[in-house]
């Protein structure tokens, strides 16, 4: 009897869920009858700019694959999601997508055949793209070389591998845009580029337990074992970012006042190197408007004050071990009189955001893995290179080095648990 009641109850729940899912399941959009006509040179150039600003290539290209053919594994707390093939191959890419299907994908996170896309694809941002920019991106992508490659299936934990559930997630996190162009003025343009196209918040806001971006946005997050710094505290701290610093950094991957783009930010700046300077200036102008008041920041971070202490005076045991490692491994480039700082005008290590930040992750990652040579990118200038030290230094030595650079050289309070974090990041590193 009880069993029968339970079974009946389960059937009712299943039926209700089924109806809800059927009700929310979007319809398929018929495949395009023919590929779109080749775009004009002007449309192609404008589309390339939109796609660069949207950083599409960064995720939709794997290190061993062709451009836009997907296959990059994105490690999320819910499993690995593989980016899709967005070349115009008819069977494995978006070759059969109409511009209406493409627009729906960017606006609602739904594929041409009606299946829900995972929000690793930042449709919660691209939903606010203008109709015109979406059409330009479509024209550009549909004119790429088709690549026939089927990417691996996602490896997600149950029940998240059940896509219809995303309809409910979208009710919480998707605020659909209306296709309007951004308002007039540099700041509005910058807001649009940072939010709708650049989807900066996807990394710089951090995610909550449901995989939604934290609110308020831009409080900082973690991606691939790197710390994505808060974007609301750039203008405070000991070395405040200026609008020009930010524009330099975004457009070239290097700010002479703060250091080089590293980790997941590096490919972003490689793409932004190809857009007009006015675009990165607009992004910088907008970012300057979201800064928290400096006074609140001083109260919030007690370590903002200490003055730079001459290094040799206060070397503790671990610091002097770190100083020895620094002398052999780092000083040729980062020492006080090194040509890199004297002639090439690179910032002193003590000013680098990876050293001055509260989280040691970016310092550790850079020491372990270095900074690779620039990949060939249109308009990309060589920003920075550093050899990797993962095979040279032990985790304890990375911690010694951190103690010296952070405390001895930069005069900041020591980070804790660096050796353990180094061991952890070493294990997480991708092959």
């Amino acid at each position, binding site marked *: 009897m009880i069993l029968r009641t339970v079974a009946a109850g389960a059937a009712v729940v299943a039926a209700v869920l089924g109806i809800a899912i059927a009700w929310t399941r979007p319809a398929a959009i018929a495949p395009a009858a023919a590929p779109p006509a080749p775009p004009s040179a002007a449309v192609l150039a404008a589309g390339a700019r939109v796609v660069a600003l949207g950083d599409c290539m960064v995720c939709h290209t794997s290190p061993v694959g062709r451009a836009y053919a997907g296959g990059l594994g994105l490690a999320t707390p819910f499993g690995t999601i593989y980016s899709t093939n967005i070349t115009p191959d008819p069977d494995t890419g978006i070759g059969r997508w109409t511009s209406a299907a493409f627009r729906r994908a960017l606006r609602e996170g739904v594929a041409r055949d009606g299946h829900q896309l995972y929000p690793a694809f930042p449709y919660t941002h691209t939903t606010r793209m203008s109709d015109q920019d979406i059409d330009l991106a479509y024209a550009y992508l549909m004119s790429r070389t088709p690549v026939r490659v089927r990417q691996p299936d996602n490896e997600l934990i149950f029940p998240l591998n059940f896509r219809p559930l995303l309809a409910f997630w979208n009710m919480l996190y998707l605020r659909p845009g209306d296709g309007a162009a951004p308002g007039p003025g540099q700041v509005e343009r910058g807001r649009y580029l940072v939010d709708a196209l650049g989807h900066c918040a996807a990394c710089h806001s951090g995610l909550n337990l449901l995989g939604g971006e934290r609110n308020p946005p831009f409080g900082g997050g973690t991606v691939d074992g790197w710390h994505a710094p808060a974007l609301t505290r750039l203008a405070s701290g000991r070395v405040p970012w200026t609008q020009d610093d930010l524009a330099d950094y975004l457009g070239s991957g290097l700010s002479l006042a703060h250091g080089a783009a590293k980790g997941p930010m590096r490919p972003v700046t490689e793409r932004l190197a190809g857009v007009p300077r006015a675009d990165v200036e607009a992004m910088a102008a907008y970012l300057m408007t979201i800064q928290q008041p400096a006074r609140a920041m001083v109260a919030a971070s007690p370590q903002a004050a200490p003055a730079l202490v001459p290094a040799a005076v206060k070397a503790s045991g671990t610091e002097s071990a770190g100083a020895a490692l620094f*002398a052999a491994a780092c000083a*040729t480039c980062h020492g006080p009189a090194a040509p890199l700082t004297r002639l090439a005008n690179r910032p002193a290590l003590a000013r680098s955001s990876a050293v001055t930040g509260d989280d040691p992750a970016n310092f550790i990652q850079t020491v372990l893995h270095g900074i690779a040579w620039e990949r060939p990118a249109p308009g990309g200038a060589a920003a920075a290179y550093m*050899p990797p030290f993962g*095979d*040279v230094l032990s985790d304890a030595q990375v911690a010694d080095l951190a103690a010296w650079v952070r405390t001895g050289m930069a005069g900041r309070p020591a980070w804790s648990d660096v050796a353990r974090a180094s061991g952890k990041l070493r294990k997480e590193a991708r092959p």
Partner: protein
Amino acid sequence: MSKTGKDTVDTTRVEVNGRPRDLRADPATPLLYVLRGELALNGAKFGCGMGQCGACTVLLDDQPVFSCVTPLAACAGRRVRTVEGLGSAARPGRLQAAFIEHQAAQCGYCIAGMIVRAQALLDRVPHPTDDQIRRHMEPNLCRCGTHHRILAAIRAAAGAAP
């Protein structure tokens, strides 16, 4: 493990080409200077001094590293192999023989580093594909442009592997 205190007169023990050596140099010295200065192992060369060119490549626990930016302190208790450890002029090792056979050296400055880096690959992957060889050798530069001969020599050595 590593001895880095200023007041210490200790030595740093490193296994170099299979022999334990107690090295007197300051632990803050780059390994390259210790190999060349204290041990007269002159195979590894000073190229850029910044870990960019690979002329100073040696193996540290079987991994290729730039010895010009490798602190002696980081080598304590570990194994170092240099080009001298792979054979001699009279009895060249397999890679060395292949480099001679293919006349892979022009000025020769980069060659010790090239051979050592290639050795790390063959230790791990006895029969690498061309793509694996190219990717693996990427950090080492040759200004003369003998890359094709270097690749041919590595291919030959890999093909001759048991």
